[in-house]
C-alpha cells in the first residue's frame, strides 16, 4: 500500500480501483450461487429435481448458462431507440453497484465509510428506476413500456415504507453510517435492533413490538423494491412476457439479471445491517473477528435471499390496486405508528 501511495496520483487511483472492484468479484460469485440455488429451491419446493446432468447434481449449470449468454447474439430490434437501449443496462447496474459502496461487509471492509451510509444507498438506488424506464421505453415494445411503468410506479411508492422503516432503525441507533449502526449492535443476538438494541431492559421490552413490525415491513417493502414475487408485476410472465427487458438478449439481458440478483443481496444487506446486527456474531465475542464478520454478514444476507426465493414459490402475485393499497394504506400507517411509538419510548 505504501509503495503505491508513493506513486502519487496513479497510485491512489489504482488503490481506489482495486478497493472498489472487490464487491463486483463478490457479486459475480454470489450470482452464480444464487442462480443455481434459485432453480434448485424452486424445483424442490415443487417436488422436482431441476438440473441433474451438468456435473454433480447440476452444479456446473450456472457456468453453462453464462457460457450460453456469452455466445448469444446481441439483438436490437429495428424500431428500438439504439442509444438508450444500449445505455439502459449500464444505468441499472450502476445504481445497484453504487449502493454497494456503503455496505459494511466486515469490520475492516466497507467501500466508502461515509457518514451518510444508508441515506446514500436509498438515493443512489433510484438510478435503477431511471434505467428501467430507459430500457422499457427504448425497446419500443408495449410489454416493455408497461413493465417499465409498473416497475417505476412500484419502486417509487415502496420507497416510502422502506425509507420510513430505515428511519426507525436510524432513530434507535442514532447514526446513518452502517458501520456505526453495526457496531452499536455488537455483543450478541439480544443486542440486535430487531430485538430492541442494547438499551436498558424496560426500554428494550417496550421497543420489541415496534422493531419486529418494522423489520417485517422493511422485508416486505424490499421485496417490492427488487420486483420479486409477490410484487413481480413489472415482469409478470403471464401478462407482460418479460416486462421491461423483453427485447434484451445475450449479455445485455445478463446485465439486467445480474443487477436484479445484486439488488436482492443489497436490500438484504441493508436489512441485515440495520436490524440483524450486520457483521457482528450472534454469540457475543465467540466466533467474531474480521473474517468471521464477513462470514456472518454474508450468511445472514444469504438467509434473507433464501427467504425471498422461498416466498416466490409460496405466494401468488398481487394486482396493481392491491399493490398500491398495501403500500399506502397498510404499510405506511403502521410505520407512522411505529415511528411515534419508538420516538416516545426513546424520549422517556
Amino acid at each position, binding site marked *: 500500500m505504501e509503495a503505491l501511495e508513493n506513486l502519487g*496520483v496513479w497510485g491512489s487511483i489504482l488503490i481506489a480501483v482495486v478497493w472498489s472492484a472487490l464487491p463486483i468479484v463478490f457479486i459475480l460469485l454470489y450470482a452464480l450461487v444464487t442462480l443455481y440455488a434459485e432453480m434448485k429451491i424452486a424445483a424442490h419446493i415443487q417436488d422436482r429435481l431441476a438440473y441433474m446432468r451438468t456435473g454433480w447434481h447440476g452444479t456446473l449449470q450456472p457456468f453453462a448458462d453464462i457460457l450460453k449468454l456469452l455466445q448469444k447474439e446481441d439483438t436490437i430490434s429495428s424500431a428500438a431507440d439504439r442509444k*438508450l437501449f444500449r445505455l439502459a443496462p449500464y444505468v441499472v447496474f450502476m445504481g445497484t453497484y453504487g449502493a454497494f459502496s456503503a455496505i459494511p461487509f466486515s469490520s475492516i471492509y466497507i467501500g466508502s465509510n461515509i*457518514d451518510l451510509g444508508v*441515506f446514500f444507498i436509498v*438515493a443512489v438506488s*433510484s438510478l435503477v428506476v431511471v434505467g428501467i424506464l430507459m430500457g422499457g421505453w427504448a425497446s419500443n415494445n408495449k410489454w416493455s413500456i408497461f413493465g417499465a411503468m409498473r416497475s417505476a410506479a412500484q419502486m417509487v411508492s415502496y*420507497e416510502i415504507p422502506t425509507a420510513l422503516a430505515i428511519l426507525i432503525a436510524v432513530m434507535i441507533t442514532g447514526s446513518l453510517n452502517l458501520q456505526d449502526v453495526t457496531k452499536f449492535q455488537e455483543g450478541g443476538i439480544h443486542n440486535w435492533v430487531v430485538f430492541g438494541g442494547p438499551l436498558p431492559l424496560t426500554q428494550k421490552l417496550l421497543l420489541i413490538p415496534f422493531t419486529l413490525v418494522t423489520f417485517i415491513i422493511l422485508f416486505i417493502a424490499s421485496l417490492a423494491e427488487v420486483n420479486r414475487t409477490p410484487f413481480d408485476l413489472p415482469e409478470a410472465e403471464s401478462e407482460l412476457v418479460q416486462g421491461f427487458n423483453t427485447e434484451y438478449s445475450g449479455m445485455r439481458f445478463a446485465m439486467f439479471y445480474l443487477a436484479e440478483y445484486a439488488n436482492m443481496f443489497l436490500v438484504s444487506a441493508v436489512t441485515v445491517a440495520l436490524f440483524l446486527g450486520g457483521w457482528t456474531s450472534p454469540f457475543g465475542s465467540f466466533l467474531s473477528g474480521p473474517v468471521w464478520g464477513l462470514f456472518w454478514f454474508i450468511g445472514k444476507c444469504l438467509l434473507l435471499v433464501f427467504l425471498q426465493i422461498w416466498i416466490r414459490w409460496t405466494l401468488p402475485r398481487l394486482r396493481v390496486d392491491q399493490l398500491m393499497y398495501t403500500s399506502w394504506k397498510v404499510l405506511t400507517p403502521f410505520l407512522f405508528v411505529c415511528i411515534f411509538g419508538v420516538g416516545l419510548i426513546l424520549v422517556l
Partner: protein
Amino acid sequence: MDLYIIVFYLFALITLASAAIVVISKNIVYSAFALLFTFFGVAGLYVLLMADFIAVTQLLIYVGGILVLLLFGVMLTTKVIRVDMRTATVRTFPAVVIVAALAGTLIGIFWSTDWPQSPASDGFERTIPQIGEMLLTSYLLPFEIASVVLLVALIGAAMIARRERKAL
C-alpha cells in the same frame, strides 16, 4: 495534477456535456434522460465541495423524484419523438441585448472573482449532526413552514386528482 482536480474536471465535463444535450436535443426523451447525468454531475460537484448531505439529497430528490415524474410526463404524452420544439429565432434584437447584458455580467463576475483552486477543507467534517441541530434550533420556523407548505401542496394535489374522478 491532483486527483481532486481530475475528478473535478470529470464531473464538470459530465455536467456540461449532458446539460448541452438537454438543451440542444430535438428528442424530448433524450433531453429528459440527459438530465439524469446533469443531476449526477452536479451531485459529484457537491461532494467535492464537502457538502455530502446536499449531494445525496440532490440525487434522492432530483433523480429519484423529479426526474421519474418528468419521464412519466414525457412518456405519457402522445407524441413523444416528433414534438414541435419551438427553437426558431424570434425577436432577435431584444434577445441579443438581454443575452449580451447577461453574458457581460457573468464574464465580469467570472474575471473579478478569486476562484479557490483546492477543497475548502482537507477531510470530511460530520455535516449531518450539524444540519440536524440547526434545523431543530436556529432554523426551526423556516423548517416547519416549508413542511406545512409541502403538506398543503400534497393535499392540493390529492384534491385535484379526486375531483377529476368524480367528473367522469
